[in-house]
C-alpha cells in the first residue's frame, strides 16, 4: 500500500514537472534587406516589427537581423530576445527591443551586396537553438540576391518545420520592363525553400500579416 501511494505521488509530481515550455512557443526571425535603396523601406519594416512584438507572448523568441554582404554571422543580428514567463517583464523586454530596432533604423547604412541565403542559414541556426515549437522566418526584401565574389551560397537549405514568409517584395525597375524576372525570382526562392521541406508564402499586403503571427 505504501509503495502504491509513493508511486502515485511520484506520478503526480512527474506530470506536474513535465511542463513543455518550448513546444507551444513561437519563434520569429526577421531578415531586413539593407542593400541599396531598399533601406528606404525600413520604416515599413519597423511597423511590422512593432506589430510582431505586440502579438508575441511570454516564452516566444524574436530576432531581427540585417541582410548585408555576409549575412551568415551573429554580428548581423540587430536585436534578439526570448520573452520571460512573467508578462510584466516580457513587456519591458518588448520596449527595449523596440528601442534597439529604432536605433538601428536610424543608423543603418546601405550594404553593397545582398546575402539572403546567409541570412536564412543564420535564421535556421538561431531558431534551432531557441528550440521554439513554431518557427517563422520573415524576409523583408526584394529577394534579389547579390553575392560578393568568392562567397559560396549554393547550399541546400534544411527548412523542415519552417515557414518562410517574404514580405514587401518590391518590384525592381528591371522587373517592370520584364515581369518574368520578378516571377522567376519568386519561383526560385519558393523552389529552394520547398526543396528544403519548408513552407513558402509571399505577403505584400501587410493587412494579411496577422495570419502569419497568430496562426
Amino acid at each position, binding site marked *: 500500500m505504501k509503495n502504491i501511494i509513493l508511486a502515485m505521488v511520484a506520478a503526480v509530481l512527474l*506530470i*506536474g514537472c*513535465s*511542463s*513543455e*515550455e518550448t*513546444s*507551444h*512557443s513561437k519563434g520569429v526571425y526577421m531578415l531586413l534587406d539593407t542593400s541599396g535603396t531598399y533601406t528606404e523601406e525600413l520604416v515599413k519594416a519597423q511597423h511590422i516589427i*512593432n*506589430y510582431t*512584438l*505586440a502579438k508575441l*507572448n*511570454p*516564452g*516566444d523568441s524574436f530576432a531581427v537581423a540585417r541582410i548585408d554582404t555576409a549575412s551568415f554571422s551573429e554580428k548581423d543580428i540587430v536585436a534578439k530576445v526570448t*520573452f520571460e*514567463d*512573467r*508578462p*510584466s517583464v*516580457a*513587456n519591458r523586454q*518588448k*520596449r527595449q527591443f*523596440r528601442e534597439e530596432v529604432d536605433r538601428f533604423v536610424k543608423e543603418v547604412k546601405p550594404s553593397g551586396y545582398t546575402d539572403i541565403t546567409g541570412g536564412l542559414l543564420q535564421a535556421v541556426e538561431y531558431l534551432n537553438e531557441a528550440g521554439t515549437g513554431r518557427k517563422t522566418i520573415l524576409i523583408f526584401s526584394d529577394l534579389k540576391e547579390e553575392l560578393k565574389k568568392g562567397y559560396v551560397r549554393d547550399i541546400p537549405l534544411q527548412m523542415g518545420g519552417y515557414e518562410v514568409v517574404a514580405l514587401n517584395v518590391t518590384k525592381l525597375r528591371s522587373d517592370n520592363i520584364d515581369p518574368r524576372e520578378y516571377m522567376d525570382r519568386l519561383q526560385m526562392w519558393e523552389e529552394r525553400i520547398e526543396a528544403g521541406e519548408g513552407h513558402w508564402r509571399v505577403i505584400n499586403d501587410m493587412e494579411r500579416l496577422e495570419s502569419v503571427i497568430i496562426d
Partner: protein
Amino acid sequence: MSFSEIYLLWSESAALSAVIWSVVLTVLTYLAREPMHRMIEAVSSLAKNAFQQASESLLGAEKRLSERNTEVLIAAGREASEHLIEREFVRINRIVETDLAEYPTLHRKISDVIVRIDEDYKQSSDVPPEAPGWGKAISAVAQISTSKSDPMVGQILESIHGSLEKNHEKTLDEYRKSSRERHMLLKKMLPSWRGMNSDLKQVDQNVNALMERSRVVDRQMEEYEKIINETDSAKKTLSSSSLTQFFIAGFVLAIAIGGAMINFNLIARPMQEMVGGSSVMMGYKTANIAALVIILVEVAMGLFLMESLRITRLFPVIASMKDDMRMHMAWITFTILLSLASVEAGLAYMREVLAQDDAALRASLLSGTVAAMGVSDRWITTAAQMGMGFILPFALVFVAIPLESFIHSSRTVLGILAAGTLRALAFAFAVLANTSHYIGRMLTSVYDLFIFIPLWIETRVRGSNHSEKKKSRGFNPLQTDSMKEVS
C-alpha cells in the same frame, strides 16, 4: 460451371429451362416443407423466447430498482424529517432553557408584587373619622336655659363654637392628609400592576411560542409517521420534492458555475506573473490550471466551512467531530478562505495593472502613441475588480448548500430515469418477441404460397382418399378427417 450453363442444363430454350427449373424447385421446396416449417418455427420461437426472457429480466430489474428507489427515497425523507423534528426540539429546548427557566424567578417576582400590592391596598383602605366624643356635652350645653342677653353664656358658647371650629378644621386636615397618603399609596401601586401585567404577557408569549412549536412538532410527527408507514401520499410528496430540489439546485449550481467562471477570468491572467505565462501542463497553460485550482480550493474550503457549521451534511466524519474540534475546523477553513480572498483581491489589482501596461505597450507599438487613461477613472475599475475578487470566494462558499441538495436529489432522479429506461427497454423487447413470433408465422405462410400448386394437389388427393374411406366406413358428418386437417 457458370450460372447460365446451370440454367440451361435441361434445354437450350430459356423458357423451357425456366419451366423445368420452376417445377424442380417447387417439388424440392414441397418435399422440404415439413423440415422448413419446423426450422422457421424453431428460429421464431427461439427469438421470441429470448426476447421475452430479456423483457421479463428487465422488468424484474426495473421492479427491484423501483423498490430500491423507494427505499432510498423513504430513507432520505425519514432522515430529513428526523432532522426537522430534531431542529424543532432544539428550538423548544432553547425556549424552555432561556424563557421558562426563568419562570421560578418570574413567579417569585409576581408574588412579591402581589404581596406589595396587598400591603399597599390594606394601607390605603379608607379609615372613617372617629365620631366626636363631645356630642353629648354639646347637647347638654345647648339645653342650658338662659337668655341670649347673658354675656357669660354668650362668651362660653362663642368659646365652645371656636373650639369646635378649630377642632373640626384639624380633624378635616388630618383626614385630607390621610386621604392623600392613601392616594399616594394607590399611585405607587400602578407601576407594580403594570410590571405584573408585562410579566404575565411575557409568560403568555412564551407559552404561546411553546404551543406553536409543539403544533409544528405535531405536524412533523404526522409527516414522519406517514413516511415510516410508507404511504402513497408520502412517496408522491417525497418524489415530487426530490425532482423540484434537483431542478432548483441545478439552476443555482449553474449560476454558481457562472460566478466561478468570472472568478477564473479575474485571476487567470495575473496568475501568469506567479507561475509563468508560457509553461504548459497536460496541454493547458499552468497559469489557467493554477487559477482553477485556487477556485476549486475555495469551493472545497466552503464545503468544509458549511460542514463545520453543520449547515450541510456531506461528510459524516466532520459531522461526528467533537464540537470544539468542529469549531476549530470552521475557524481554520474561514481563515484559509479569507487568505485566498485577499490573494484574489491582490491578483485582481495585478490584473488591472497588467491590462494597463498591455494597453499602453500595444498603443505605443501599433500606433506610436502612449495610451493614457484618466487616473480618476482607473480607480473605479480597479476597486470593482478587487471587490469582486474578494467577495466571489465567499459567495462560492454557499455553493455547498445547492450542491448537497443536488447530490441527494440526483440519486432519486437518476433512479427514476434508470427505471424508466429499463421499462422502455422491457417494452421494446416484448414488442420484438411478438414481432419475431408473427414473422415466423408469416414466413411459413409465404413458404406455402410458393408451393401452393403441390399443396392444392395434396389436398385434392387426400380429399378423394378420405371420401373413399368414408364411403367404406359410413359417413359421419360431425367428425371427419378432412375437417381435422383443415382445422
